[in-house]
Protein backbone atom coordinates (compact mmCIF):
# COMPACT_ATOMS: atom_id res chain seq x y z
CA UNK A 1 0.00 0.00 0.00
CA UNK A 2 1.27 3.46 -0.84
CA UNK A 3 0.25 6.82 0.56
CA UNK A 4 -0.89 8.03 -2.85
CA UNK A 5 -3.36 5.16 -3.22
CA UNK A 6 -6.98 6.12 -2.86
CA UNK A 7 -7.60 3.22 -0.47
CA UNK A 8 -4.97 4.58 1.95
CA UNK A 9 -6.95 7.77 2.39
CA UNK A 10 -10.33 6.04 2.36
CA UNK A 11 -9.26 3.84 5.27
CA UNK A 12 -8.02 6.88 7.19
CA UNK A 13 -10.85 9.26 6.34
CA UNK A 14 -13.34 8.58 9.19
CA UNK A 15 -10.84 8.89 12.05
CA UNK A 16 -9.10 11.85 10.45
CA UNK A 17 -12.43 13.62 10.16
CA UNK A 18 -13.42 12.74 13.72
CA UNK A 19 -10.09 13.72 15.25
CA UNK A 20 -10.06 17.00 13.32
CA UNK A 21 -13.60 18.02 14.27
CA UNK A 22 -13.55 16.72 17.83
CA UNK A 23 -10.00 17.43 19.01
CA UNK A 24 -7.88 19.53 16.64
CA UNK A 25 -10.32 22.29 15.63
CA UNK A 26 -11.67 22.72 19.21
CA UNK A 27 -8.10 22.84 20.50
CA UNK A 28 -7.07 25.57 18.01
CA UNK A 29 -10.31 27.48 18.51
CA UNK A 30 -9.83 27.13 22.25
CA UNK A 31 -6.40 28.75 22.12
CA UNK A 32 -7.86 31.55 20.00
CA UNK A 33 -10.85 32.08 22.32
CA UNK A 34 -8.54 32.31 25.32
CA UNK A 35 -7.25 35.63 23.95
CA UNK A 36 -10.74 37.11 23.54
CA UNK A 37 -13.60 38.19 25.79
CA UNK A 38 -15.99 35.60 24.29
CA UNK A 39 -18.98 34.79 26.48
CA UNK A 40 -20.45 31.90 24.53
CA UNK A 41 -22.67 33.98 22.30
CA UNK A 42 -20.74 37.05 21.23
CA UNK A 43 -17.12 36.51 20.23
CA UNK A 44 -16.08 39.73 21.94
CA UNK A 45 -12.90 41.63 21.25
CA UNK A 46 -9.33 40.49 21.26
CA UNK A 47 -7.98 41.09 24.75
CA UNK A 48 -4.46 39.76 24.39
CA UNK A 49 -3.07 38.15 27.51
CA UNK A 50 -5.70 39.69 29.83
CA UNK A 51 -7.37 36.34 30.66
CA UNK A 52 -4.04 34.80 31.52
CA UNK A 53 -3.05 37.75 33.71
CA UNK A 54 -6.41 37.54 35.49
CA UNK A 55 -6.10 33.85 36.28
CA UNK A 56 -2.74 34.39 37.94
CA UNK A 57 -4.61 36.52 40.49
CA UNK A 58 -7.66 34.25 40.66
CA UNK A 59 -7.56 32.81 44.16
CA UNK A 60 -10.22 30.21 43.54
CA UNK A 61 -8.36 28.88 40.49
CA UNK A 62 -5.01 28.83 42.27
CA UNK A 63 -6.59 27.10 45.27
CA UNK A 64 -8.06 24.40 43.01
CA UNK A 65 -4.69 23.95 41.34
CA UNK A 66 -2.98 23.55 44.71
CA UNK A 67 -5.67 21.18 45.97
CA UNK A 68 -5.35 19.08 42.79
CA UNK A 69 -1.58 18.93 43.14
CA UNK A 70 -1.72 17.86 46.79
CA UNK A 71 -4.38 15.31 46.01
CA UNK A 72 -2.40 13.91 43.07
CA UNK A 73 0.84 13.54 44.99
CA UNK A 74 -0.78 11.76 47.94
CA UNK A 75 -2.98 9.58 45.71
CA UNK A 76 -0.20 8.57 43.32
CA UNK A 77 2.00 7.40 46.19
CA UNK A 78 -0.82 5.56 47.97
CA UNK A 79 -2.31 3.98 44.85
CA UNK A 80 1.06 2.68 43.69
CA UNK A 81 1.95 1.40 47.13
CA UNK A 82 -1.37 -0.40 47.57
CA UNK A 83 -1.44 -1.57 43.94
CA UNK A 84 2.02 -3.12 44.14
CA UNK A 85 1.22 -4.70 47.52
CA UNK A 86 -1.95 -6.26 46.12
CA UNK A 87 0.00 -7.51 43.10
CA UNK A 88 2.60 -9.13 45.36
CA UNK A 89 -0.14 -10.77 47.41
CA UNK A 90 -2.07 -12.26 44.49
CA UNK A 91 1.08 -13.46 42.68
CA UNK A 92 2.35 -15.38 45.71
CA UNK A 93 1.31 -18.95 46.33
CA UNK A 94 -2.22 -18.55 47.55
CA UNK A 95 -5.39 -20.38 46.59
CA UNK A 96 -7.73 -17.42 46.33
CA UNK A 97 -5.51 -15.60 43.82
CA UNK A 98 -7.95 -15.50 40.90
CA UNK A 99 -10.93 -14.54 43.05
CA UNK A 100 -8.93 -11.77 44.73
CA UNK A 101 -7.79 -10.30 41.40
CA UNK A 102 -11.41 -10.14 40.30
CA UNK A 103 -12.40 -8.50 43.59
CA UNK A 104 -9.69 -5.86 43.72
CA UNK A 105 -10.29 -4.90 40.12
CA UNK A 106 -14.07 -4.60 40.39
CA UNK A 107 -14.42 -0.91 41.34
CA UNK A 108 -12.75 0.08 38.04
CA UNK A 109 -15.65 -1.20 36.03
CA UNK A 110 -18.15 1.03 37.77
CA UNK A 111 -18.09 4.66 36.80
CA UNK A 112 -16.53 7.33 39.00
CA UNK A 113 -19.85 9.09 39.43
CA UNK A 114 -21.55 6.02 40.92
CA UNK A 115 -18.55 5.15 43.10
CA UNK A 116 -18.57 8.69 44.47
CA UNK A 117 -22.23 8.40 45.45
CA UNK A 118 -21.63 5.05 47.20
CA UNK A 119 -18.78 6.52 49.22
CA UNK A 120 -20.77 9.65 49.99
CA UNK A 121 -23.26 7.36 51.73
CA UNK A 122 -20.47 5.57 53.60
CA UNK A 123 -18.72 8.73 54.77
CA UNK A 124 -21.83 10.70 55.64
CA UNK A 125 -24.17 8.00 56.99
CA UNK A 126 -22.17 4.89 57.91
CA UNK A 127 -19.22 6.75 59.42
CA UNK A 128 -21.54 8.93 61.49
CA UNK A 129 -23.43 5.84 62.65
CA UNK A 130 -20.31 3.98 63.71
CA UNK A 131 -18.97 7.12 65.33
CA UNK A 132 -22.12 7.41 67.41
CA UNK A 133 -22.14 3.76 68.41
CA UNK A 134 -18.50 3.70 69.42
CA UNK A 135 -18.22 7.28 70.61
CA UNK A 136 -15.54 8.28 68.12
CA UNK A 137 -15.87 11.99 67.53
CA UNK A 138 -13.65 12.13 64.44
CA UNK A 139 -16.04 9.97 62.45
CA UNK A 140 -18.73 12.65 62.60
CA UNK A 141 -19.27 15.17 59.85
CA UNK A 142 -17.15 13.56 57.19
CA UNK A 143 -16.99 15.50 53.91
CA UNK A 144 -18.19 18.56 55.82
CA UNK A 145 -14.66 19.87 56.27
CA UNK A 146 -11.87 20.48 53.78
CA UNK A 147 -9.65 17.92 55.44
CA UNK A 148 -12.17 15.07 55.55
CA UNK A 149 -13.18 15.92 51.99
CA UNK A 150 -9.56 15.63 50.92
CA UNK A 151 -9.07 12.26 52.60
CA UNK A 152 -12.46 11.09 51.41
CA UNK A 153 -11.35 11.68 47.84
CA UNK A 154 -8.01 9.99 48.47
CA UNK A 155 -9.69 6.91 49.99
CA UNK A 156 -12.19 6.70 47.13
CA UNK A 157 -9.50 6.96 44.46
CA UNK A 158 -7.15 4.51 46.19
CA UNK A 159 -9.93 1.97 46.54
CA UNK A 160 -10.88 2.41 42.91
CA UNK A 161 -7.52 2.62 41.18
CA UNK A 162 -5.32 0.28 43.22
CA UNK A 163 -6.87 -2.73 41.49
CA UNK A 164 -6.14 -1.24 38.09
CA UNK A 165 -2.53 -0.57 38.99
CA UNK A 166 -2.35 -4.07 40.50
CA UNK A 167 -3.20 -5.54 37.09
CA UNK A 168 -0.28 -3.65 35.51
CA UNK A 169 2.19 -4.75 38.18
CA UNK A 170 0.98 -8.34 37.85
CA UNK A 171 1.71 -8.27 34.12
CA UNK A 172 5.33 -7.29 34.85
CA UNK A 173 5.75 -9.56 37.88
CA UNK A 174 4.60 -12.57 35.92
CA UNK A 175 6.95 -11.68 33.08
CA UNK A 176 10.05 -11.79 35.30
CA UNK A 177 12.51 -14.52 34.29
CA UNK A 178 12.18 -17.52 36.60
CA UNK A 179 15.93 -18.21 36.84
CA UNK A 180 16.62 -14.70 38.08
CA UNK A 181 14.05 -15.14 40.84
CA UNK A 182 15.52 -18.49 41.82
CA UNK A 183 19.03 -17.06 41.93
CA UNK A 184 17.70 -14.26 44.11
CA UNK A 185 16.19 -16.85 46.40
CA UNK A 186 19.68 -18.22 47.04
CA UNK A 187 21.58 -14.94 47.19
CA UNK A 188 19.27 -12.85 49.36
CA UNK A 189 19.01 -13.29 53.06
CA UNK A 190 15.32 -12.55 53.35
CA UNK A 191 12.16 -11.70 51.44
CA UNK A 192 12.64 -7.99 51.97
CA UNK A 193 16.11 -8.03 50.37
CA UNK A 194 14.86 -10.11 47.50
CA UNK A 195 12.12 -7.56 46.88
CA UNK A 196 14.31 -4.50 47.37
CA UNK A 197 17.30 -5.53 45.26
CA UNK A 198 15.84 -7.88 42.67
CA UNK A 199 12.10 -7.65 42.16
CA UNK A 200 11.67 -3.90 42.61
CA UNK A 201 14.32 -2.83 40.04
CA UNK A 202 12.92 -5.35 37.57
CA UNK A 203 9.40 -3.96 37.79
CA UNK A 204 10.58 -0.35 37.37
CA UNK A 205 9.07 -0.13 33.85
CA UNK A 206 5.68 -0.96 35.39
CA UNK A 207 6.19 1.96 37.72
CA UNK A 208 6.64 4.33 34.75
CA UNK A 209 3.38 3.14 33.19
CA UNK A 210 1.34 3.12 36.37
CA UNK A 211 2.63 6.46 37.54
CA UNK A 212 1.69 7.99 34.20
CA UNK A 213 -1.81 6.54 34.48
CA UNK A 214 -2.37 7.50 38.12
CA UNK A 215 -1.02 11.01 37.60
CA UNK A 216 -3.11 11.77 34.54
CA UNK A 217 -6.18 10.22 36.15
CA UNK A 218 -5.90 12.09 39.43
CA UNK A 219 -4.99 15.37 37.75
CA UNK A 220 -7.97 15.26 35.42
CA UNK A 221 -10.40 13.96 38.03
CA UNK A 222 -13.95 15.22 37.65
CA UNK A 223 -16.71 12.63 38.15
CA UNK A 224 -15.63 11.44 41.60
CA UNK A 225 -15.06 15.01 42.69
CA UNK A 226 -18.55 15.96 41.56
CA UNK A 227 -20.42 13.08 43.16
CA UNK A 228 -18.46 12.81 46.41
CA UNK A 229 -18.04 16.40 47.57
CA UNK A 230 -19.29 18.53 44.66
CA UNK A 231 -16.37 20.80 45.56
CA UNK A 232 -17.77 21.64 48.99
CA UNK A 233 -17.54 22.88 51.65
CA UNK A 234 -17.17 26.40 50.20
CA UNK A 235 -15.38 25.18 47.03
CA UNK A 236 -12.48 24.01 49.16
CA UNK A 237 -12.34 20.52 47.60
CA UNK A 238 -12.82 21.78 44.08
CA UNK A 239 -10.29 20.40 41.62
CA UNK A 240 -9.12 22.11 38.44
CA UNK A 241 -11.41 20.20 36.10
CA UNK A 242 -14.47 21.19 38.12
CA UNK A 243 -13.31 24.76 38.56
CA UNK A 244 -12.96 25.16 34.78
CA UNK A 245 -16.39 23.63 34.24
CA UNK A 246 -18.03 26.01 36.71
CA UNK A 247 -16.25 29.07 35.31
CA UNK A 248 -17.58 28.19 31.88
CA UNK A 249 -21.06 26.86 32.44
CA UNK A 250 -22.17 28.45 35.72
CA UNK A 251 -20.55 31.86 35.37
CA UNK A 252 -20.69 31.92 31.56
CA UNK A 253 -17.13 33.27 31.41
CA UNK A 254 -16.25 31.12 28.40
CA UNK A 255 -13.07 32.82 27.22
CA UNK A 256 -11.72 33.07 30.74
CA UNK A 257 -12.52 29.38 31.40
CA UNK A 258 -10.82 28.51 28.13
CA UNK A 259 -7.64 30.32 29.21
CA UNK A 260 -7.68 28.16 32.33
CA UNK A 261 -8.22 25.10 30.15
CA UNK A 262 -5.18 25.98 28.03
CA UNK A 263 -3.05 26.40 31.16
CA UNK A 264 -4.43 23.09 32.40
CA UNK A 265 -3.39 21.39 29.15
CA UNK A 266 0.13 22.78 29.40
CA UNK A 267 0.44 21.60 33.01
CA UNK A 268 -0.89 18.10 32.26
CA UNK A 269 1.40 17.73 29.24
CA UNK A 270 4.44 18.99 31.17
CA UNK A 271 3.80 16.78 34.19
CA UNK A 272 3.28 13.73 31.99
CA UNK A 273 6.39 14.30 29.87
CA UNK A 274 8.69 15.17 32.79
CA UNK A 275 7.46 12.15 34.72
CA UNK A 276 8.08 9.73 31.86
CA UNK A 277 11.49 11.31 31.19
CA UNK A 278 12.63 10.99 34.80
CA UNK A 279 11.37 7.44 35.18
CA UNK A 280 12.93 6.33 31.91
CA UNK A 281 16.29 7.65 33.04
CA UNK A 282 15.96 5.87 36.36
CA UNK A 283 15.16 2.62 34.59
CA UNK A 284 18.38 2.82 32.61
CA UNK A 285 20.48 3.49 35.69
CA UNK A 286 19.04 0.48 37.47
Amino acid at each position, binding site marked *: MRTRDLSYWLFLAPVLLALTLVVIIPML*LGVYYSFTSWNGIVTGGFVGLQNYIDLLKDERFLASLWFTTKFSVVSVILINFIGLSLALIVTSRIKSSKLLRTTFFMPNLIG*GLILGFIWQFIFVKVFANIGQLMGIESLQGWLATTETGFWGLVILMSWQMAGYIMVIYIAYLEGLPQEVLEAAQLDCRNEYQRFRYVVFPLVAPAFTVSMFLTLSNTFKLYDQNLSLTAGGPYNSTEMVAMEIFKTAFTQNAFAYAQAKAVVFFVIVALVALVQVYINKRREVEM
Partner: protein
Amino acid sequence: MQKKWNIRTEVLGVLLGILWLTPFYLMFVNSFKTKKEIFTDTTSLPEGWNIANYTEAFRELDFLQTLANSLLITVASVTLIIICSSMAAYSLSRAKSKISTVLFLAFVAAMLIPFQSVMIPLVTVFGNFEMLNRPGLVFMYLGFGASLSIFLYHGALNNISRSLDEAATVDGANRFQVFWFIIFPMLKPITVTVAILNIIWIWNDYLLPSLVINSPGSETLPLKMFFFFGEYTTQWHLALAGLALAILPVIIFYFFAQSAIIKGVSDGAVK
Protein backbone atom coordinates in the same frame (compact mmCIF):
# COMPACT_ATOMS: atom_id res chain seq x y z
CA MET B 1 10.50 -22.39 50.55
CA GLN B 2 8.57 -20.49 47.90
CA LYS B 3 6.77 -23.61 46.73
CA LYS B 4 4.99 -23.91 50.05
CA TRP B 5 1.44 -22.66 50.40
CA ASN B 6 1.64 -19.21 51.88
CA ILE B 7 -1.03 -19.20 54.59
CA ARG B 8 -0.24 -15.80 56.11
CA THR B 9 -0.46 -14.11 52.74
CA GLU B 10 -3.66 -16.00 52.02
CA VAL B 11 -5.32 -14.69 55.19
CA LEU B 12 -4.10 -11.14 54.55
CA GLY B 13 -5.38 -11.31 50.96
CA VAL B 14 -8.80 -12.58 51.95
CA LEU B 15 -9.16 -9.90 54.65
CA LEU B 16 -8.26 -7.21 52.13
CA GLY B 17 -10.70 -8.75 49.65
CA ILE B 18 -13.48 -8.47 52.22
CA LEU B 19 -12.49 -4.88 52.96
CA TRP B 20 -12.63 -4.16 49.21
CA LEU B 21 -16.17 -5.46 48.96
CA THR B 22 -17.46 -3.65 52.06
CA PRO B 23 -18.70 -0.55 50.18
CA PHE B 24 -20.77 -2.74 47.87
CA TYR B 25 -22.06 -4.73 50.83
CA LEU B 26 -23.10 -1.58 52.69
CA MET B 27 -24.85 -0.23 49.61
CA PHE B 28 -26.64 -3.53 49.09
CA VAL B 29 -27.95 -4.19 52.61
CA ASN B 30 -29.01 -0.60 53.14
CA SER B 31 -30.87 -0.50 49.85
CA PHE B 32 -33.48 -2.77 51.46
CA LYS B 33 -34.04 -0.60 54.52
CA THR B 34 -36.70 1.99 55.13
CA LYS B 35 -35.80 5.65 55.38
CA LYS B 36 -36.13 5.51 59.16
CA GLU B 37 -33.98 2.41 59.48
CA ILE B 38 -31.12 4.02 57.55
CA PHE B 39 -31.35 7.04 59.78
CA THR B 40 -30.91 4.96 62.93
CA ASP B 41 -28.70 2.08 61.82
CA THR B 42 -26.61 1.55 58.71
CA THR B 43 -24.42 -1.30 59.89
CA SER B 44 -26.82 -4.15 60.63
CA LEU B 45 -28.93 -6.24 58.29
CA PRO B 46 -32.38 -4.84 57.40
CA GLU B 47 -35.37 -5.85 59.53
CA GLY B 48 -37.31 -6.88 56.47
CA TRP B 49 -35.94 -7.27 52.95
CA ASN B 50 -38.49 -4.99 51.33
CA ILE B 51 -38.07 -4.40 47.63
CA ALA B 52 -40.30 -1.34 47.54
CA ASN B 53 -37.20 0.87 47.22
CA TYR B 54 -36.24 -1.01 44.09
CA THR B 55 -39.61 -0.75 42.38
CA GLU B 56 -39.72 2.96 43.06
CA ALA B 57 -36.12 3.58 41.95
CA PHE B 58 -36.76 1.44 38.87
CA ARG B 59 -39.66 3.67 37.92
CA GLU B 60 -37.95 6.95 38.81
CA LEU B 61 -34.88 6.05 36.79
CA ASP B 62 -37.04 4.86 33.89
CA PHE B 63 -34.59 2.00 34.18
CA LEU B 64 -35.25 -0.05 31.05
CA GLN B 65 -35.27 3.01 28.81
CA THR B 66 -32.10 4.42 30.41
CA LEU B 67 -30.38 1.05 30.18
CA ALA B 68 -31.33 0.78 26.50
CA ASN B 69 -29.95 4.30 25.89
CA SER B 70 -26.64 3.39 27.51
CA LEU B 71 -26.44 0.16 25.53
CA LEU B 72 -27.24 1.90 22.26
CA ILE B 73 -24.64 4.65 22.73
CA THR B 74 -21.94 2.23 23.92
CA VAL B 75 -22.49 -0.42 21.25
CA ALA B 76 -22.71 2.13 18.43
CA SER B 77 -19.60 4.01 19.58
CA VAL B 78 -17.46 0.94 20.21
CA THR B 79 -18.43 -0.64 16.89
CA LEU B 80 -17.59 2.55 15.05
CA ILE B 81 -14.28 2.88 16.89
CA ILE B 82 -13.30 -0.71 16.07
CA ILE B 83 -14.18 -0.44 12.36
CA CYS B 84 -12.61 2.95 11.79
CA SER B 85 -9.47 2.72 13.90
CA SER B 86 -8.51 -0.77 12.73
CA MET B 87 -8.74 0.44 9.12
CA ALA B 88 -6.78 3.58 9.88
CA ALA B 89 -4.09 1.64 11.73
CA TYR B 90 -3.87 -0.74 8.77
CA SER B 91 -3.17 2.15 6.39
CA LEU B 92 -0.58 3.64 8.73
CA SER B 93 1.22 0.36 9.35
CA ARG B 94 1.30 -0.81 5.72
CA ALA B 95 2.32 2.40 3.97
CA LYS B 96 5.56 3.40 5.63
CA SER B 97 6.22 7.02 4.75
CA LYS B 98 6.67 10.44 6.28
CA ILE B 99 2.94 11.10 6.04
CA SER B 100 2.15 7.91 7.96
CA THR B 101 4.69 8.72 10.66
CA VAL B 102 3.36 12.25 11.12
CA LEU B 103 -0.26 11.09 11.22
CA PHE B 104 0.54 8.32 13.69
CA LEU B 105 2.38 10.73 15.97
CA ALA B 106 -0.55 13.18 15.74
CA PHE B 107 -2.95 10.46 16.88
CA VAL B 108 -0.71 9.47 19.77
CA ALA B 109 -0.12 13.09 20.81
CA ALA B 110 -3.89 13.68 20.92
CA MET B 111 -4.01 11.32 23.91
CA LEU B 112 -2.22 13.97 25.98
CA ILE B 113 -4.98 16.55 25.54
CA PRO B 114 -7.26 16.64 28.59
CA PHE B 115 -10.95 16.73 27.75
CA GLN B 116 -11.45 20.00 29.63
CA SER B 117 -9.10 21.76 27.20
CA VAL B 118 -11.36 21.15 24.22
CA MET B 119 -14.70 20.86 26.01
CA ILE B 120 -15.97 24.43 25.61
CA PRO B 121 -15.19 24.97 21.88
CA LEU B 122 -16.36 21.41 21.15
CA VAL B 123 -19.82 22.13 22.54
CA THR B 124 -19.96 25.42 20.65
CA VAL B 125 -18.89 23.92 17.31
CA PHE B 126 -21.25 20.95 17.54
CA GLY B 127 -24.01 23.22 18.81
CA ASN B 128 -23.70 25.34 15.68
CA PHE B 129 -24.22 22.29 13.50
CA GLU B 130 -27.19 21.10 15.58
CA MET B 131 -25.17 18.04 16.51
CA LEU B 132 -25.66 18.07 20.27
CA ASN B 133 -27.55 14.78 20.11
CA ARG B 134 -26.89 11.04 20.14
CA PRO B 135 -25.31 10.75 16.66
CA GLY B 136 -23.09 13.69 17.58
CA LEU B 137 -22.12 11.97 20.82
CA VAL B 138 -21.20 8.72 19.01
CA PHE B 139 -19.07 10.72 16.55
CA MET B 140 -17.30 12.47 19.45
CA TYR B 141 -16.53 9.12 21.06
CA LEU B 142 -14.88 8.10 17.79
CA GLY B 143 -12.71 11.22 17.93
CA PHE B 144 -11.71 10.70 21.55
CA GLY B 145 -11.40 6.92 21.38
CA ALA B 146 -9.48 6.63 18.12
CA SER B 147 -6.06 7.55 19.51
CA LEU B 148 -5.55 4.69 21.93
CA SER B 149 -7.34 2.24 19.63
CA ILE B 150 -5.14 3.10 16.64
CA PHE B 151 -2.08 2.88 18.85
CA LEU B 152 -3.02 -0.65 19.97
CA TYR B 153 -4.02 -1.84 16.49
CA HIS B 154 -0.84 -0.37 15.00
CA GLY B 155 1.31 -2.39 17.37
CA ALA B 156 -0.55 -5.60 16.58
CA LEU B 157 -0.48 -4.98 12.82
CA ASN B 158 3.28 -4.53 12.80
CA ASN B 159 3.52 -8.14 13.97
CA ILE B 160 1.47 -9.48 11.06
CA SER B 161 3.63 -10.26 8.04
CA ARG B 162 3.04 -8.24 4.89
CA SER B 163 3.61 -11.29 2.75
CA LEU B 164 0.04 -12.25 3.67
CA ASP B 165 -1.24 -9.02 2.12
CA GLU B 166 0.84 -9.61 -0.97
CA ALA B 167 -0.27 -13.21 -1.40
CA ALA B 168 -3.91 -12.17 -1.15
CA THR B 169 -3.37 -9.34 -3.62
CA VAL B 170 -1.78 -11.75 -6.10
CA ASP B 171 -4.88 -13.91 -5.75
CA GLY B 172 -6.92 -10.96 -6.94
CA ALA B 173 -8.29 -9.49 -3.70
CA ASN B 174 -8.62 -5.74 -3.45
CA ARG B 175 -7.47 -3.68 -0.43
CA PHE B 176 -10.85 -3.80 1.19
CA GLN B 177 -11.11 -7.58 0.85
CA VAL B 178 -7.52 -8.13 2.01
CA PHE B 179 -8.18 -6.18 5.17
CA TRP B 180 -11.62 -7.45 6.12
CA PHE B 181 -11.24 -11.11 5.10
CA ILE B 182 -7.56 -11.82 5.81
CA ILE B 183 -6.12 -9.29 8.26
CA PHE B 184 -9.03 -8.24 10.50
CA PRO B 185 -9.83 -11.81 11.64
CA MET B 186 -6.21 -12.13 12.74
CA LEU B 187 -6.59 -9.04 14.90
CA LYS B 188 -9.23 -10.63 17.10
CA PRO B 189 -7.22 -10.61 20.37
CA ILE B 190 -6.42 -6.92 20.09
CA THR B 191 -10.00 -6.17 18.99
CA VAL B 192 -11.20 -7.69 22.28
CA THR B 193 -8.77 -5.43 24.16
CA VAL B 194 -9.84 -2.33 22.22
CA ALA B 195 -13.51 -3.19 22.74
CA ILE B 196 -13.16 -3.71 26.49
CA LEU B 197 -11.15 -0.55 27.12
CA ASN B 198 -13.65 1.53 25.17
CA ILE B 199 -16.72 -0.15 26.68
CA ILE B 200 -15.56 0.59 30.24
CA TRP B 201 -14.84 4.19 29.46
CA ILE B 202 -17.88 5.02 27.34
CA TRP B 203 -20.39 3.13 29.50
CA ASN B 204 -19.28 5.07 32.58
CA ASP B 205 -18.71 8.46 31.01
CA TYR B 206 -20.69 11.24 32.60
CA LEU B 207 -19.24 14.60 31.55
CA LEU B 208 -19.55 14.30 27.78
CA PRO B 209 -23.17 13.06 27.73
CA SER B 210 -24.06 15.75 30.27
CA LEU B 211 -22.87 18.37 27.78
CA VAL B 212 -24.26 16.76 24.64
CA ILE B 213 -27.54 15.03 25.45
CA ASN B 214 -30.27 17.48 26.31
CA SER B 215 -33.47 15.74 25.33
CA PRO B 216 -35.40 13.95 28.08
CA GLY B 217 -35.71 10.21 27.51
CA SER B 218 -32.33 9.80 25.84
CA GLU B 219 -30.16 9.99 28.99
CA THR B 220 -27.52 7.35 29.70
CA LEU B 221 -27.28 5.66 33.10
CA PRO B 222 -24.66 7.95 34.69
CA LEU B 223 -26.54 11.01 33.46
CA LYS B 224 -29.90 9.84 34.81
CA MET B 225 -28.21 8.79 38.04
CA PHE B 226 -26.95 12.32 38.53
CA PHE B 227 -30.37 13.91 38.09
CA PHE B 228 -31.88 11.22 40.28
CA PHE B 229 -29.40 12.04 43.03
CA GLY B 230 -30.05 15.74 42.96
CA GLU B 231 -33.61 15.05 44.05
CA TYR B 232 -32.88 12.17 46.40
CA THR B 233 -29.82 13.01 48.48
CA THR B 234 -31.96 12.99 51.58
CA GLN B 235 -33.75 9.81 50.57
CA TRP B 236 -30.87 7.37 50.78
CA HIS B 237 -33.10 4.29 50.74
CA LEU B 238 -34.21 5.11 47.18
CA ALA B 239 -30.83 6.41 46.10
CA LEU B 240 -29.05 3.23 47.19
CA ALA B 241 -31.56 1.05 45.38
CA GLY B 242 -30.94 3.19 42.29
CA LEU B 243 -27.18 2.74 42.62
CA ALA B 244 -27.57 -1.02 43.03
CA LEU B 245 -29.71 -1.13 39.88
CA ALA B 246 -27.14 0.88 37.94
CA ILE B 247 -24.32 -1.43 39.00
CA LEU B 248 -26.19 -4.64 38.20
CA PRO B 249 -25.52 -4.69 34.40
CA VAL B 250 -21.80 -4.14 35.00
CA ILE B 251 -21.64 -6.98 37.53
CA ILE B 252 -23.37 -9.33 35.07
CA PHE B 253 -20.97 -8.29 32.30
CA TYR B 254 -18.00 -8.78 34.64
CA PHE B 255 -19.24 -12.20 35.72
CA PHE B 256 -19.25 -13.48 32.15
CA ALA B 257 -16.16 -11.76 30.79
CA GLN B 258 -13.86 -11.30 33.79
CA SER B 259 -10.74 -12.95 32.38
CA ALA B 260 -11.09 -11.16 29.04
CA ILE B 261 -11.61 -7.86 30.86
CA ILE B 262 -8.58 -8.19 33.13
CA LYS B 263 -6.41 -9.39 30.25
CA GLY B 264 -7.65 -6.57 28.02
CA VAL B 265 -6.91 -3.92 30.62
CA SER B 266 -3.44 -5.28 31.32
CA ASP B 267 -2.58 -5.61 27.60
CA GLY B 268 -3.88 -2.12 26.93
CA ALA B 269 -1.85 -0.57 29.72
CA VAL B 270 1.39 -2.45 29.15
CA LYS B 271 1.70 -2.05 25.40
